[in-house]
């Protein structure tokens, strides 16, 4: 590819052009990662606060008063409205800002140019804009915590009319407006980023890098970006219509409402319309979060098992199937909205089909481990953890996709347990795996492995300790987003489960301090990394150990083989980088024809 113009001498860099308004994919990736870490710490702290309330309802906690002030945490007791606010913002930040912006933003930016052999993203400027829209939306979202009436509180799904009417709850005032504004900017950021990723992958692959020689990470980023570009605009439309309903008296989602002692004039709209629009993004969003984590895991499991990923083409095929199916399953979030039973059956069918490509992926991961030579780096541990949570969370999805079984479980904590394990834990494990694995590439130093081990095992145990018992609460009929379960005698004997969960939630939160320490300490004081510390095949490890514009000092590397030639018979070493030419009669691509 003719990318030589990138390599011209750059004008002298200032602090601002290097660290703030950077056009370089590596710097933008780090900006995304740091923003996501800050957001994740905030959202995790929120979850600890409401876990305290759920385990010991009405009990006084100094920390609640210290963090939320007298208004929302009077005498250390969490206010019911703020409880809903915390739940809402925790969900919003985790799903969008950490696992979408943070995960895709960090690793798509870092790895796409590196692994396809490009000097940078197709448009560095759009890439920079993408980050700054993300930053702006993060600031607005955090700012919404401090307004009169509190942040948006109707749950991260912000169903109208609750979210449309300030009379319905304090959080539906200015807090909700800011939520919608923030999300609109977020969507702009996601679209700018996504378009850039797609174009870079399709157009800027280096010589020899055919689509079937792409690492699975890149395949996952490509499909994620395509899903995002197709579905995020629908959420933008949904948000804009909601803004119209809230501020300009339209009735897209409102009809027949009597609230605050008066009948509203709006009529003819449907709250269910919003749910269709929301979940048309909302469900693909699950895969926007999951696919990059699965792609990262594919790469890390192969490298650290010292084996080719098993069934490379089946892995691509299953990701394509998942990406396609993700668009025709959204109705399974709405089985109890009174939708036509026949339509419900269609969504049951399409949803359960997703289990097939998911099963293929799981068995391929397990087979990759089989007869491997497994090196337990912290990244590898998190990748194995991901396979485990992907299985356990995915299986309960089969129950929830079955409409007849969804009736008694809909909106209970069973659902919360399901999506936290399959989406939350899997995606965050994928993100941790990615950070541990590519830290040497990002910061040119190594993270401490012992702290990494401690971080993994504490996180893994407390994650299951937190979310596994939650299924039982859901099976007992406890609905989600309850400020306390003390109003119903039937839930009284479940309080010890809640306390167990809160214990693990706190343990899990504390374990993240180990990670934060390791991350920031290693950034400055970690031992210097060698060029290819994991003995990996992909192109990013052929770049010099310094961050230069254009990534490769000379010509771009030429790709000669697929990325998974690990432990190939007849080779001197157990890895063969993609730039090494094929020998005479050597078959490429693991023997696919």
């Amino acid at each position, binding site marked *: 590819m003719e990318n030589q113009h990138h390599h011209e001498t750059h004008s002298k860099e200032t602090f601002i052009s290097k660290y703030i308004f950077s056009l370089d994919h590596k710097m933008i990736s780090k900006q995304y990662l740091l923003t996501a870490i800050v957001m994740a710490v905030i959202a995790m702290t929120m979850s600890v606060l409401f876990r305290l309330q759920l385990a010991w309802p009405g009990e006084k906690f100094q920390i609640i008063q210290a963090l939320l002030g007298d208004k929302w945490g009077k005498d250390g007791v969490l206010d019911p409205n703020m409880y*809903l606010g915390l739940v809402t913002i925790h969900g919003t930040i985790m799903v969008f800002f950490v696992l979408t912006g943070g995960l895709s933003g960090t690793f798509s930016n870092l790895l796409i140019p590196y692994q396809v052999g490009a000097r940078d993203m197709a448009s560095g400027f759009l890439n920079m804009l993408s980050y700054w829209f993300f930053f702006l939306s993060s600031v607005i979202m955090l700012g919404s915590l401090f307004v009169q009436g509190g942040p948006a509180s109707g749950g991260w799904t912000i*169903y109208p009319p609750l979210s449309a*009417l300030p009379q*319905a*709850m*304090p959080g539906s005032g200015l807090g909700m407006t800011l939520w919608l504004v923030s999300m609109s900017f977020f969507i702009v950021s996601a679209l700018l980023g996504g378009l850039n990723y797609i174009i870079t992958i399709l157009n800027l692959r280096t010589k020899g890098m055919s689509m079937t020689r792409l690492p699975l990470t890149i395949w996952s980023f490509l499909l994620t970006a395509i899903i995002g570009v197709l579905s995020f605009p629908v959420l933008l439309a949904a948000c804009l219509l909601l803004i119209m309903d809230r501020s300009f008296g339209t009735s897209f989602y409102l*009809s*027949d*409402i*009597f*609230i605050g002692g008066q009948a509203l004039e709006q009529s003819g709209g*449907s*709250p*269910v319309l919003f749910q269709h629009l929301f979940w048309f993004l909302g469900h693909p969003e699950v895969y926007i979060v999951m696919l990059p984590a699965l792609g990262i895991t594919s790469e890390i499991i192969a490298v650290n098992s010292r*084996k*080719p990923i098993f069934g490379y083409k*089946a892995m691509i095929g299953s990701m394509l199937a998942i990406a396609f199916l993700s668009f025709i399953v959204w109705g399974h979030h709405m089985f*109890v909205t*009174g939708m036509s039973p026949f339509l419900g059956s269609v969504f*049951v069918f399409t949803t359960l089909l997703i289990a*097939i490509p998911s*099963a*293929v992926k799981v*068995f391929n991961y*397990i087979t990759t*481990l089989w007869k*491997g030579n*497994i090196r*337990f780096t912290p990244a590898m541990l998190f990748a*194995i953890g991901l396979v*485990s949570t992907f*299985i356990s969370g995915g299986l309960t999805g089969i*129950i929830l996709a*079955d409409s*007849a079984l969804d009736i*008694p479980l*809909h*909106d209970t904590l069973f659902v919360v347990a399901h999506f936290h394990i399959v989406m939350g834990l899997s995606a965050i494990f994928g993100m941790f795996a990615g950070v541990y694995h590519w830290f040497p590439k990002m910061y040119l130093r*190594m993270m401490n492995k012992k*702290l990494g081990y401690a971080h993994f095992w504490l996180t893994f*145990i407390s994650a299951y300790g937190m979310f*596994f*018992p939650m299924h*039982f609460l859901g*099976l*007992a*009929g406890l*609905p989600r*987003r*309850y400020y*306390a*379960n003390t109003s119903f005698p*039937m839930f009284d*004997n479940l309080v010890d489960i809640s306390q167990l969960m809160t214990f693990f939630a706190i343990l899990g939160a504390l374990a993240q301090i180990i990670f934060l*320490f390791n991350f920031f*300490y290693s950034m400055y004081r970690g031992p210097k990394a060698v060029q290819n*510390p994991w003995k990996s095949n992909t192109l990013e490890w052929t770049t010099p150990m310094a961050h230069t514009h254009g990534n490769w000092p000379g010509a771009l590397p030429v790709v000669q083989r697929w990325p998974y030639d690990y*432990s190939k018979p007849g080779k001197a070493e*157990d890895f063969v980088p993609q730039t090494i030419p094929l020998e005479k009669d050597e078959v490429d691509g693991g*023997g696919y024809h």
Partner: protein
Amino acid sequence: MIQFLVSIVVILSAILIVQLVKFFELLAHLKGQGADDINEKDNKMNARLMMLFLIGFFAFFFWMLVTYKDKLLPVAASEHGAITDWLFNFNMLILIITFAFTHILLFYFAFKYYSRKDNTAVYFPHNNKLEMIWTVIPAIVLIVIIMFGLKTWNKITEPPKTESLLIELYAKQFDWTARYAGKDNKLGKSSFRLITNTNPLGVDSTDIKAADDIIIKGEFHIPVKKEVAFDFRSQDVIHSAFMPHFRAQMNCVPGMVTMFHFTPTITTSEMRKITNNPAFDYILLCSKVCGSAHFNMQMTIVVDTESDYKKWLAEQQSKTFKQPLIAEIKKENTDTLAVIKQ
């Protein structure tokens, strides 16, 4: 004072960790390896932890099952609930087998194939036969799951019988009201524009069908072994009528009437014996977040025998303050007119 001590402890532990990290790095350096190198000892330790985790995880699962089996929902108290529960158990059996099988493979392989001197990886990039097996087997299992699931779903969602008892459940922030259709088993029209303090459901008093409707607060009764059809409405935001013991749930959406029906099979007093809890009550709760008191939006359901139910209903009819409905007056007038004409 305590805060001061806590901050000192935090600072000291931070320093301790920094020093420990440095110490280990130095030690590794002296041993002639980079601190980042993963050695056989690390691999062995993590491999063993993998196996330990698998055992611990299964033990935890088993312990939860045994400890909390009785604390979950009691037996289903509706006809379709029994089928739903069977379907749940059937699916759960498949899932637990899959869960155990895949987890044993995952952690066992991680344990067995850790990197060490005498171990090498096998180059095994793909195998069409194997991949076919784990595409086709899940597909077959899923077809079975889908077939049973849709059969149950179709049964639950088939239209209610015409003679079933009709009750409207009306949701608003933050309580429930029930309206019985009365003798004609038809609910009178209603509109949100008619809502006043004395007419909280906005019932249209010019509609003759509204004349015998009975409005109930606090707790509502239904007869056992008779199909009950519910119409759901909401006044303000989306609520969700969830009756866990009957395995029944439906959203209440402003501007829409949604429906669900079931046949209760166990009376409240029978269930008190089954659960061995004299205070047991069936409940209706809200499961869609609807505002600050969402967690406390409830109504008690009482399942009576047919005779008890009739007695209760008669009491309610006499208790209800009967506003002379315009429709009734009109009808009376036309009746009198007809008599005079004859």
